[in-house]
């Protein structure tokens, strides 16, 4: 826990809309340091919008975004990123025409003052498979390797809050399990992790807390146990238990 022991990331009564259409109707969510929070829900529930609000990319229409107890609603996303908020978007967001090494070195421009050697050393230490492919174009990597590269790039910024959008998308179950093990390890180092996921099984194995969002509202949140997984299909099909 932090010195002030409050959550690192806190959304309070967040409402958000796209072109006048409200997609979040008062979302409350906390993520503490060292915690993995899984945000689950069907397609179009507003999960990615929650992440965008948390990263400062989408200003809320009402409610507050707090980081480390400080109200940072409306602050520029670049300032949040510089402070230590890292979003890994759906679809990985790697530069397909650049090599693995160049993708990593893009992070030297993020303003957190880390050198090339340090970034490469950290990334290859954590993801040895990337070291073997450092000269290869990122677009030619497998889906799992690209996701590893995206994670490595995110971790190069030394994040305190890590926001992951659909980490499992298009990946084999074994690769997903391996990636979530890495996420759990990252959280153990004191990083607050918020994971948005449509396919719950893998993330629930490592999550300390889960929330189910349906049509822009948190329908359930608490400690994930076996009963949640059984009830999830009901939430997804629109008939909550």
């Amino acid at each position, binding site marked *: *826990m*932090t*010195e*002030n022991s409050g959550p*690192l990331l806190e959304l309070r009564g967040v409402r958000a809309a796209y072109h006048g259409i409200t997609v979040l109707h008062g979302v409350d969510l906390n993520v*503490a*340091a*060292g*915690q*993995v929070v899984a945000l689950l829900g069907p397609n179009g529930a507003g999960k990615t919008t929650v992440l965008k609000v948390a990263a400062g990319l989408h200003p809320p229409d009402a409610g507050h975004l707090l*980081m*480390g*107890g*400080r*109200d*940072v609603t*409306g*602050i520029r996303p670049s*300032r949040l990123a510089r*402070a*230590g908020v890292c979003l890994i978007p759906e679809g990985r967001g790697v530069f397909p025409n650049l090599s693995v090494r160049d993708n990593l070195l893009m992070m030297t421009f993020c303003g957190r003052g880390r050198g090339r050697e340090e970034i490469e050393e950290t990334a290859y230490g954590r993801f040895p498979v990337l070291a073997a492919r450092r000269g290869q174009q990122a677009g030619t990597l497998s889906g799992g390797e690209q996701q590893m590269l995206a994670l490595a790039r995110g971790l190069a910024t*030394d994040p*305190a*809050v890590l926001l992951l959008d659909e980490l499992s998308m298009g990946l084999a179950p074994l690769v997903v399990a391996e990636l979530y093990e890495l996420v*759990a390890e990252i*959280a*153990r*180092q*004191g*990083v*607050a992790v918020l994971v948005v996921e449509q396919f719950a099984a893998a993330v629930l*194995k*490592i*999550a*300390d807390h889960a929330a189910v969002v349906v049509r822009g509202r948190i329908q359930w949140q608490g400690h994930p146990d076996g009963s949640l997984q059984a009830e999830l299909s009901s939430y997804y099909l629109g008939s909550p238990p």
Partner: protein
Amino acid sequence: MTSTPVPASRADRFVRELAELKIPDPAAARAALWLRLGGLLMTAGLVLGALAFPLAHATDDSLAQGDALSLGLGGITAAVVGAALFLRYSLTGFLRFWLARQSYDLDRLGERLGDSTDAAEPANPPAPEGEPRNGAASSPR
């Protein structure tokens, strides 16, 4: 499950960095914008009003005079609206300062009164029985 005992130095650093961030208050920026807009409207309105007079006098064409009249009236309206906006937002700033000053003065007064009461108490110990209070000597008869 992840265990939650955490080496939290990164989180603490994050909290410290956020505490040091200067976050501009969007409401304050809006007030400054209205103040500037008010000043601009007031100035532009006065200029338009003043410009309308020579324009109207420079022609005998009643249509052109009508245009100049409209311009003048528009200028006056803009100047009135601008002045109202300018007064509203500059007065807010002044009154906020005045209120803060009043509050500070009242606090200081309260402290001074408290100090003087504290200082007065030891100087006036309860007088022994049969003697006058406040050290006033009894006058001989």
